[in-house]
């Protein structure tokens, strides 16, 4: 069965600090990987996705993530966070074969202090 681990439960940063949120997945086959963001009181929005090709993917709002197959990881990064990045971040995975069943990690809450 697929599973996704996000080890950072709550991250607190000052504005302009760099961000890296960890995501590790467990699955024996080929996967698609996603990062979603949930701003306070809002629905989930896609930040970025990896299906194939360049393992370094760029998303919206200056976010990027790197797929490292050997480590089963897909960490999210941003060089300089802003107060408006305060949100819950979810890593998710689907199998490249079979149904489009998103498995989510438990989420990481990011608080950015002005």
């Amino acid at each position, binding site marked *: 069965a697929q599973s996704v681990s996000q080890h950072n439960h709550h991250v607190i940063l000052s504005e302009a600090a760099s961000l890296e949120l960890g995501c590790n997945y467990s699955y024996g086959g080929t996967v*698609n990987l*996603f990062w*979603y963001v*949930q701003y306070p009181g*809002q*629905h*989930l*929005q*896609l930040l970025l*996705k990896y*299906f194939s090709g360049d393992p370094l993917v760029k998303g919206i709002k200056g976010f990027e993530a790197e797929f490292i197959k050997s480590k089963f990881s897909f960490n999210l990064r941003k060089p300089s966070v802003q107060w408006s990045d305060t949100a*819950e971040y*979810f890593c*998710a995975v*689907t*199998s*490249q074969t079979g*149904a*489009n*069943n*998103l*498995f*989510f990690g*438990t*989420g990481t*809450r990011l608080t950015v202090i002005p």
Partner: protein
Amino acid sequence: DTAVSQTPKYLVTQMGNDKSIKCEQNLGHDTMYWYKQDSKKFLKIMFSYNNKELIINETVPNRFSPKSPDKAHLNLHINSLELGDSAVYFCASSPSFLPYEQYFGPGTRLTVT
């Protein structure tokens, strides 16, 4: 126009009642989903429908029954509500059941008292 919409946004009800949550998407997608987000923010898929047909049914109690009158709508009916059903329920859609990004609705916060 909202791509994926849900009604109601908030739902407060008593144990034992029956309630429904509606979801509509105007993206022309073939596949729709229901997810449950618990109090710890953990998201788990419940159901997925492709062209009105059920393709995923995770281990969800029989009290939950999805209904898809057409491919733009996927409603969730819950019978005999229990305290543990309190959660935020998200509807989502994607172009097909093949792996693709999903677009989420705003969520329905269900509180069972």
